[in-house]
């Protein structure tokens, strides 16, 4: 053997270095008995990347308000928090998950947060298909607790509904409750077409519109679903009936595409007439307030169960706005993302206080079945969860209005729909399919709030019903 020993040592050294790095990462830090480990799951990539700071802000603000935590940086929520305890235990925010609205990454991040970083509670995720994915994960991991952040798909608390999964806000269908009735009555729509992206959130969102609009007697004559990566909206727009063939259109196209789809509509049929268009939160929220909403001033739209500016004028709402605004600068606490994560974190604190800091099934039993969030009015301002741990929530259909600044727009509340439950009074159910391209069918039926939607004027709920 002529080769010197060092020639063998070199690769072995490399191996040793590799193994060291490996084991250093593999070594777990010892868990402390006097802390509760929790994580935030949101998006930092994809269409909802801006939710990263907003969601974190909502969570930390609530923990600051109710659990004595303190933001590390008032301008940058993702910097994290210090202090904070609930149920006699220190709150340890182990990490903030970074999804991109795809289920695959959401699941990966969930595992990182809940297994590698050993969180016991997760606040999140942000979007529909992510929540489906995480609900399935939760079903297999009953010791962990998930409180959905602000995702709007129906399945997690309807068809899947694991016992360790909670949602203190509405799903995409609930968020649109009342909208169909308002366009039917106020604008006289009898027939309408709808166009949306081809995945679970727009389907759920459409389901709420269909339930309402068809429930009162309207007819959906066409549903167009656009696939991703199409590149051009023109051919899809042409599948919609022409403006003289229907009374209106419901838009459920989201993210980067709302503006492109509207442009294609203008190019096909001329200028947009706001009286002929309506849609879900994609028309104003999630960045559309600058690109889409200015083109549709006057249009009615669904929301989040919240509103951007000029909200409800009552003590509970004012109280929430005052409390929530204290902790960060530059955050809009009326935003649905902020509000929903705030409520999720608040519920977690209440649950931990009741369970004396215990996690797992004890916490799941202790998590509140009712909450007093800022924008709940019915039942004396108490929001209740149903038997599948899903919120029964008030909804507020909105109208896009012109604001004071040049070219800027806002929303105002036009209606108040009390106690919207996830089944729409039995229209949806755990044994029925989840909303899809062609489900639910368009049928006339009585909804619990039909004919009872109250008019809201300047943020005050009146006794008049919408006619």
């Amino acid at each position, binding site marked *: 053997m002529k080769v010197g020993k060092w020639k063998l040592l070199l690769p072995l050294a490399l191996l040793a270095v590799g193994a060291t790095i490996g084991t250093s990462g593999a070594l777990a830090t010892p868990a402390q008995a006097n802390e509760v480990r929790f994580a935030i799951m949101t998006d*930092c*990539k*994809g*269409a909802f*990347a*801006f939710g*990263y*700071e907003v969601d974190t802000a909502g969570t930390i603000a609530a923990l600051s308000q109710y659990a004595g935590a303190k933001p590390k940086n008032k301008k940058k929520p993702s910097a994290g928090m210090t202090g904070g305890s609930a149920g006699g235990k220190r709150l340890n925010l182990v990490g903030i998950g970074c999804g991109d609205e795809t289920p695959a990454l959401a699941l990966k991040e969930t595992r990182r947060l809940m297994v590698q970083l050993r969180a016991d509670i997760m606040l999140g995720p942000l979007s529909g298909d992510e929540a489906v994915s995480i609900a399935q994960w939760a079903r297999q991991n009953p010791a962990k607790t998930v409180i959905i952040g602000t995702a709007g798909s129906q399945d997690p608390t309807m068809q899947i509904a694991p016992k360790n999964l909670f949602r203190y806000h509405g799903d995409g269908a609930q968020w649109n409750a009342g909208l169909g009735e308002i366009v039917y009555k106020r604008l006289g729509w009898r027939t309408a077409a709808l166009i949306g992206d*081809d995945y679970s959130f727009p389907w759920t969102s459409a389901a709420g519109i269909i339930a309402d609009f068809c429930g009162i007697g309207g007819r*959906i*004559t*066409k*549903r*167009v*679903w*656009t*696939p*991703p*990566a*199409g*590149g*051009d*909206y*023109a*051919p*899809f727009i*042409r*599948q919609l009936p022409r403006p003289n063939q229907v009374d209106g259109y419901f838009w459920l196209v989201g*993210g*980067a*595409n709302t*503006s*492109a789809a509207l*442009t294609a509509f*203008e*190019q*096909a049929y*001329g200028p947009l007439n706001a009286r002929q268009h309506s849609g879900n939160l994609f028309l104003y929220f999630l*960045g559309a*307030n*600058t*690109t*889409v*909403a*200015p*083109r549709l001033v006057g249009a009615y739209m669904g929301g989040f169960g919240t509103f951007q500016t000029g909200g409800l004028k009552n003590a509970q709402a004012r109280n929430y706005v005052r409390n929530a605004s204290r902790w960060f600068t*530059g955050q*809009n606490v009326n935003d649905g993302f902020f509000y929903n994560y705030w409520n999720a974190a608040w519920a977690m604190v209440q649950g931990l206080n009741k369970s004396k800091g215990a996690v797992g099934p004890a916490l799941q039993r202790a998590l509140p079945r009712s909450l007093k969030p800022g924008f709940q009015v019915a039942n004396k301002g108490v929001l209740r969860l149903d038997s599948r741990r899903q919120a029964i929530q008030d909804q507020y259909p909105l109208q896009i209005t012109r604001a004071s600044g*040049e*070219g*800027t*727009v806002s929303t105002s509340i036009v209606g108040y729909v009390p106690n919207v439950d996830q089944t729409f009074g039995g229209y949806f159910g755990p044994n029925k399919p989840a909303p899809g*391209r*062609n489900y639910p069918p*368009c049928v006339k039926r009585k909804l619990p709030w039909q004919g009872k939607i109250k008019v809201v004027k300047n943020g005050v709920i009146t006794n008049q019903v919408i006619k």
Partner: protein
Amino acid sequence: MAERIRAWGVVGTVPRALAAGLVVFAILYVLVIADPPDEFGGGNWRTTNTGSALDDPSTFLTTVLDGLTFAGLLFIVASGFSLIFGLMRVVNMAHGAFYLLGGYIAYEIQQRMTGSGFGLNPTEVNTLEWVVPWLVAMVCIGVFGLAVQQLLLRWNQGQDLRQALITIAVSVIVADQVIAHFPRTVPAGTQQFGGNAVSISWPGWTNRLVDLHVGGVTYSLSRLVMLALGAAVGLALFLWLHKTKTGMVIRAGVDDRQMTAAIGINIQTTFALAFLVGSALAAFGATVGGSQASIAQGRDGEWLLFSLVVVIIGGMGSLAGAAVGSVLYGLVFAFAVAYLPTTGNECCTQYSVVLTFALMALVLAFRPQGLFGRAA
């Protein structure tokens, strides 16, 4: 052995006949077979949204126009991709990332020029406020592409797979960096950076419908402009490659690199030029695409795929191929959306994208080098 090869050949003709049959059937379906829907939304395999070309000629015409105008945009982007490949055998997998960066640059310039332009009424944008962003984006991306070529692709010419891998690395880095740093100009209360969707505005005068005086069809002027821009790019590239000395050098370089270099022509300068122009065309396309739709993260992968498909259908490195590829892709896409059978509410528009990719697989199955490509 020879018999086995022959047997393989016979088996090989069956799919050929099948494919030809499919194409003929698709054309017949659109022209005569399709039926308009009945009143209550029932239907069978013949039921489409509007019926065949005979039933509804104006829908047929607008579908053709939708396909062609989209093809104009496709061609602008894909021709740059094809030019680079044709001359240098470099598959620039960073073309989509260049598109993304170019689009955001054009957006930022337009925002600077128009002041706070979010949600701005298209009629408020004048021609200059569209042309300047467009030119600046082209120059920026052209120079950027040139830098990439000089730094990373010059010293390894001829190793085409390695170069493709290098451009993949560039695309991963560039796309990630663009998302981290754009959009910069956003209204108050909106998240800066993160690759959020932004739109560029067409100049105001394009924002109207023109009467085509055929079957009462009116059509969007901005889409027609898009087609015209595509045609102009095609014409300019054709004249450049065929009527100027530089162009002839380029074409000679495509045919025989060593020989061109041997007779004393500086092929390196020509390569650099081609990369500059090819990259700049990505930014050109992005400005048009950003005006038509939007610029957002994810568009990079989308447009890389579009470019690949167009160029694979047409044949790598062929200008005519890129044109034909764009038109085929645009038409198949538009017709698939409009003429896939529908029953009830359920329309098949969702399947249109699959069909465009199936088109490409079909072409390649019989012509691996694409319609206009030379044998690999």
